């Protein structure tokens, strides 16, 4: 397996695994568990896309639910108001079109928001993006053709296991390849030290906007998947708490670590369901899930501030178990 094609082979293996897994899952898993699995997939897409912005490029965005809302509304409105429901291959093709439309609309919003606001740093950027998310929610609440605060209902259920995890596989392919390439190093340099990055000719504003646009695109696609699974979307689904939830996934998983962020997304999405089943003195633990989230975050910040898999390097980890020979020191050309 040559280094050049490795990422493509991983993508292919991932896609084949998704398709292969879908048949036994559809046959054996009940609809309640399936819902959890799909929700985990959508959370993973949201978290991995925010990781491009918060993790790789170091721009603290608190408005990711806003992009998700734009994608969800664009895709769902296209399906219900323009296309109507369809069957078979036509359905799958239409679904692809509306998902892309949702993603592209969110990406355009990302571009429009990103160009002026990415000149801001740290807390200021967080406040602007937070405001953006709220503005989107309020606007949607007041557009009557889109259902106002009742939202859009009766969206046909097109989202499947294959769609969700297929898109996730593509996103992982894109973000892992990006991170190991010219652009990814630009993102990381911008995160580490903007002034130094500029001093070696890196156009940090351009890199930040690009990360923002790609992140917004996939948040929009995730919104489309969400709408076409729940059959109902309301502005309230995309509130500030949703954005915070995605940010917590990124921080918990380890900023900049794709696999850590995916793990955290799965854990945090499954946790409320797991807690629901635990009964303590007649009280369901899921009532305390916000307390448990907070506690988990506090403990993590104390014991592992870099996140679950932050700074985790598989090669380095494997290297710990090997005795490595001492390499000889090279001499400088001049001394």
């Amino acid at each position: 397996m040559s280094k050049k094609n490795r990422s493509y082979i991983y993508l292919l293996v991932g896609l084949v695994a998704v398709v292969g897994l879908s048949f036994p899952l559809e046959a054996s898993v009940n609809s309640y568990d399936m819902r959890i699995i799909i929700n985990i997939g959508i959370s993973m897409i949201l978290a991995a896309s925010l990781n491009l912005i918060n993790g790789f490029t170091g721009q603290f965005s608190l408005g990711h639910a806003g992009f998700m809302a734009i994608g969800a509304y664009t895709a769902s409105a296209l399906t219900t108001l323009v296309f109507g429901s369809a069957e078979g291959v036509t359905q799958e093709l239409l679904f692809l079109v509306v998902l892309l439309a949702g993603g592209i609309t969110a990406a355009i919003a990302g571009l429009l928001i990103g160009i002026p606001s990415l000149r801001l740093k740290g807390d200021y950027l967080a406040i602007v993006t937070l405001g953006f998310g709220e503005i989107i929610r309020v606007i949607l609440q007041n557009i009557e053709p889109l259902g106002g605060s009742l939202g859009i209902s009766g969206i046909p259920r097109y989202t499947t296991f294959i769609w969700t995890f297929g898109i996730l596989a593509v996103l992982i392919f894109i973000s892992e390849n990006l991170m190991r390439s010219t652009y990814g190093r630009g993102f990381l340099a911008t995160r580490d030290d903007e002034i130094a990055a500029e001093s070696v000719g890196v156009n940090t504003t351009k890199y930040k906007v690009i990360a923002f646009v790609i992140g917004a695109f996939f948040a929009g696609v995730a919104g489309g998947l969400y709408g076409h699974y729940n059959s109902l979307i309301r502005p309230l689904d995309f509130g500030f708490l949703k954005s915070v939830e995605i940010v917590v996934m990124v921080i918990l998983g380890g900023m900049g670590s794709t696999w850590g962020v995916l793990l955290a997304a799965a854990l945090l999405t499954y946790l409320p369901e797991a807690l629901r089943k635990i009964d303590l003195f007649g009280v369901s633990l899921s009532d305390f899930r916000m307390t448990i989230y907070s506690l988990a975050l506090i403990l993590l910040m104390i014991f592992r501030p870099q996140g679950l898999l932050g700074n985790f390097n598989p090669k380095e980890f494997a290297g710990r178990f090997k005795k490595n020979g001492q390499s000889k020191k090279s001499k400088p050309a001049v001394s």
Partner: protein
Amino acid sequence: MSLLHINNLTMRFGGLTAVDAVTETIEPLSLAGLIGPNGAGKTTVFNMITGVYQPTEGEILFDALSIVGSNPHEIANQGIARTFQNIRLFPSLSVFDNVRVGFNNASKTGLFGSILQPGRYWTEEKEIADKIDHLLGMFGLLDNRQELAKNLSYGDQRRVEIVRAMATDPKLLLLDEPAAGMNPTEKVELMNLIRYLRDEFKIAILLIEHDMKVVMGICEKIAVLDHGAKIASGTPEEVKNNPEVIKAYLGESG
């Protein structure tokens, strides 16, 4: 023709004039020094040349083109590279990747090339990797190429910063206190390194330095700033014996 020409350069921060009408010229292939007591405005001059600050007044011509108003990355791409007084590496990247970022702008790979990684992407990566290894070898850093920049020793971090600056293929290199925190042996190595850089890469070097042995040892021309104004310039001998300079450094006698 001069490589860099600054004319009447002035920087005011509110009521404070940090740099006051400084005029200076740097010739191609020259080794020049900028000295002066703490707070004289030396780093401010660097920050104006590299676009971090916009000068209040005056002009900066690089290769006969005005660079006032350009962004730092545009100026870097025109051929001015720098290092920082307090080292600014990318701490979470390896030494190799730190230098690799310096090649980013010369890279022909765009966004889609980065994602899809076609054959020509790998050809280019290989070419750049060879160049990086060549540079790292020259500076004795080849063994550290996969180490995280933040784990290096102070002296090594300074060298990585210079290598990263050289990766942008500059015509003018600005070094801000390169000898700070170095022991005497390291200082001698540094002086040899700076001369070697100039001769090998055919560049001009302007450095800020407090260590007079280093400055007098390698600079062909020295400019002295005090309270933002240029009080003297010339060869090391001329500057050393200039009464104004002695006054600025030691104060007036009785």
